[in-house]
């Protein structure tokens, strides 16, 4: 704990981003097209929809636009020297005496942005190509809508990543949430899809509340929402959090809430498995590679703010670690391969948050990068299987795919993905996961060592369930059944429909990318003192530089390994982790090999034995039922709200509508009905009223002085006794 606090003064000592020298370059304004190209694609897709285009034109448009974005990103990366702000146009400029709120549409390009944009646009383009074949059944029906959704999503994601202020990030945040809703609900005739879309949006909204509040607090504490402004303010206060009072301590927790919502951590992860109702390219792009990493990006961008409260980062670490374990246990017991991949995503995101919490933003960013590739390839292969087997995703009904004609590419790219996910030695996933696991033992923090062991155990579970999928689906004897989307054809005459060029090409490219992603680890670093390869290079001049190995330089000028170094079983964590994670991975793969390839019936027998005994029955049932989390949410949150809603509906109907609105409307009617008998047309009844009125007026006029005196005497009595005497005496 103490070590955590002692980092902060040293952070202050290192030279920060030279704010004064940030160029507002206009000769880089072409970079704005990275943001505008997806928007142009959206407009053109809209025109296609208006003209009811029945070809694959929307796909071609989207691929071209996204490809252009990717090329522009590459050009930007090529010419990158130092962080820059590219001003696109003035958006919000509100100034008044004593303050201002400035949020422009400007792009802040530093290496972190470029890292994110590279894989966002790259994977976006590739997945758009994949989807052009995957969604071909819907050409003329929902095809255009799909690609419009993808364009919106990428526009919002670029805003999020490239914005130079928190408001643009928020714009992108909401935009990706909306695009996710739109795309999950793509099959809107399916009630399950609609429900899943709503669930995703609503659960994200809970996180968005945190982000909105955090932005307000940041503005009220720092006076600005621009990143460089915040950094300047923090430096001015020397990274000491006491200047802002309670708000400074609240900000990291609110940001954390937002990140947990968007990146599906406990307790807000429940939307991600259900989001698999959307088409598979959506799952691959949004829910594996890009949108769910927005939470990580947010925390990395605002990392200095997390340093201001001493429990913020440990909280992130704990939530991440627990989520990783929890999701892995659920993933082990599911039968739908897309669901398994979804829980795997949640689990791996947990790893990334764990990494952020133990101050290795390098590890987290690296894992984001590698995870994007291998998870994308895993989802895309699941999609290919779904596409070819008419919607069949149950791993009990599919087997031996690698021996089938036309399915070899799918099987072997899936194998590559599984190896990376399981952390097989020398794959990209191995190195990125190791960075995180090791740092958990290096950094001293509350319970970090326990988290580290938990994470290692989870790595074993990950290896197990990943290879459970591969061994069941791709290995073993050939067997397949058609799925639900058979559309009435005879099941016996069903022939699987192997993927063609677009799908295969994309799978191969991304799988190669997953393999190549291991290389950055070995690249030499140009900047002094840091190591970790290309990724570390990319984030060392971002706000998250504290998490880059070697970036924090002590006063003595030595490297960081002496900074309160923890150890694992007496060994140096970095070196030991190579072996420990490798061994754990092999154990997991071995168990999966046994249960799911060599002796498949043993798995069923084990399950049967567990179910039979009362002491262990809860284990498989709870895991298969996702630990009843959804049911708990329904009971504790949804039902009370639903009851409250019913109560308010009744109140609205009877109190507001009935008593107030209709009551007030009924008042004139009732009054009229009450007075109506007076108008009976009979002269004598009118005469009675006239005489009565005349007599009363006469009484009033004749006895007015007495009445006035009477009233005065009453009021005088209540005021002063002497006044009464005077009035009485004076009246006579």
């Amino acid at each position, binding site marked *: 704990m103490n070590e955590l606090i002692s980092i902060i003064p040293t952070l202050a000592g290192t030279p920060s981003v030279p704010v004064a020298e940030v160029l507002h370059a206009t000769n880089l304004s072409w970079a704005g097209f990275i943001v505008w190209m997806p928007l142009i694609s959206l407009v053109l897709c809209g025109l296609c929809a208006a003209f009811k285009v029945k070809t694959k034109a929307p796909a071609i448009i989207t691929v071209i636009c996204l490809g252009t974005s990717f090329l522009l990103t590459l050009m930007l990366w090529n010419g990158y020297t130092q962080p820059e702000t590219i001003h696109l146009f003035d958006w919000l400029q509100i100034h008044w005496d004593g303050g201002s709120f400035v949020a422009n549409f400007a792009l802040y390009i530093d290496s972190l942005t470029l890292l994110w944009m590279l894989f966002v646009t790259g994977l976006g383009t590739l997945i758009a190509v994949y989807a052009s074949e995957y969604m071909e059944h819907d050409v003329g029906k929902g095809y255009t809508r799909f690609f419009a959704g993808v364009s919106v999503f990428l526009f919002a994601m670029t805003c999020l990543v490239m914005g130079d202020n928190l408001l643009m990030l928020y714009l992108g945040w909401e935009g990706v949430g909306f695009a996710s809703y739109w795309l999950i609900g793509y099959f809107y005739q399916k009630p399950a899809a609609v429900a899943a879309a709503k669930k995703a949006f609503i659960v994200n909204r809970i996180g968005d509340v945190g982000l909105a509040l955090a932005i307000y607090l940041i503005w009220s504490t720092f006076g600005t929402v621009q990143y460089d402004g915040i950094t300047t303010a923090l430096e001015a206060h020397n990274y000491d959090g006491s200047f802002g009072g309670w708000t400074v301590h609240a900000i990291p927790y609110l940001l954390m809430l937002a990140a947990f919502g968007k990146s599906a951590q406990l307790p807000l992860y429940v939307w991600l498995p259900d989001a698999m109702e959307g088409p598979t390219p959506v799952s691959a792009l949004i829910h594996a590679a890009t949108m769910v990493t927005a939470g990580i990006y947010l925390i990395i961008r605002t990392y200095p703010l997390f340093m201001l409260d001493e429990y913020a980062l440990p909280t992130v670490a704990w939530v991440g670690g627990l989520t990783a374990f929890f999701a892995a246990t659920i993933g082990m017991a599911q039968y739908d391969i897309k669901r398994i991949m979804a829980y795997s995503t949640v689990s791996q995101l947990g790893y990334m948050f764990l990494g952020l919490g133990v101050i290795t933003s390098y590890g987290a960013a690296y894992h984001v990068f590698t995870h994007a590739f291998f998870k994308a390839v895993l989802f895309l292969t699941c999609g290919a299987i779904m596409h070819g087997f008419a919607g069949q995703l149950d791993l009990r009904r599919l087997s031996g795919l690698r021996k089938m004609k036309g399915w070899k590419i799918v099987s072997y790219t899936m194998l590559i993905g599984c190896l990376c996910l399981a952390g097989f030695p020398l794959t990209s996933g191995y190195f990125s996961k190791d960075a995180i696991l090791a740092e958990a033992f290096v950094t001293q923090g509350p319970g970090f060592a326990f988290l580290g062991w938990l994470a290692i155990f989870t790595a074993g579970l990950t290896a197990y369930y990943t290879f459970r999928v591969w061994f069941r689906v791709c290995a073993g004897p050939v067997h397949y059944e058609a799925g639900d989307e058979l559309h009435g054809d005879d099941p016996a005459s069903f022939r699987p429909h192997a993927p063609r060029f677009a799908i295969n090409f994309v799978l191969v490219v991304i799988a190669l990318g997953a393999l190549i992603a291991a290389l950055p680890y070995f690249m030499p670093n140009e900047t002094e003192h840091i190591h970790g390869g290309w990724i570390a290079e990319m984030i060392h001049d971002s706000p998250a530089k504290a998490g880059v190995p070697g970036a924090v330089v002590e006063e003595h000028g030595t490297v960081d390994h002496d900074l309160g170094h923890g150890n694992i079983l007496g060994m140096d964590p970095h070196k030991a982790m190579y072996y420990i994670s490798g061994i754990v991975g092999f154990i997991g793969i071995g168990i999966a090999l046994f249960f799911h390839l060599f002796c498949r019936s043993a798995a069923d027998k084990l399950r049967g034995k567990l179910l039979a005994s009362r002491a262990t029955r809860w284990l498989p049932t709870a895991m298969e039922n996702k630990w009843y989390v959804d049911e708990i949410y329904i009971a504790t949150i949804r039902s009370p709200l639903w009851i409250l809603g019913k109560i308010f509906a009744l109140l609205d109907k009877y109190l507001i509508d009935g008593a107030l609105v209709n009551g007030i409307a009924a008042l004139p009617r009732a009054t009229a009905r009450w007075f*109506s008998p007076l*108008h*009976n*047309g*009979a*002269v*004598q009844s009118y*005469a*009675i009223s006239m*005489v009565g009125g005349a007599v009363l007026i006469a009484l009033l006029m004749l006895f007015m002085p007495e009445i006035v005196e009477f009233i005065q005497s009453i009021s005088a009595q209540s005021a002063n006794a002497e006044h009464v005497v005077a009035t009485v005496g004076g009246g006579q």
Partner: protein
Amino acid sequence: MSSFAPSALAGYLIVSGLLLTIGLVGFLVRRNLIVMFLCTELMFQGAAIAFVAVGRYLFDYSGQVMVIFILTVAAAEAALALALVVLLHRQKETLDADAYVELQE
């Protein structure tokens, strides 16, 4: 003329007031059109006595002159009112005042 105490004047005025009131009550209560008008004549009686009494008290003969005019007007009114009652009776074959309620809601 003999003298006249103020309380005597009060007595005469009370009598006229009583006649007025009784005539008023009769007007509001009776449903026969003709009897209604008869009750208004009763109210005139009350007014007449009041005029004459006060005129006597103040030695001013205007009071009695006023009564002459009251008689004139009463006669004119009676003639016209009865003509109207005859017309109404021809229309509805009844003398009930409650039969003429077309202005009701």
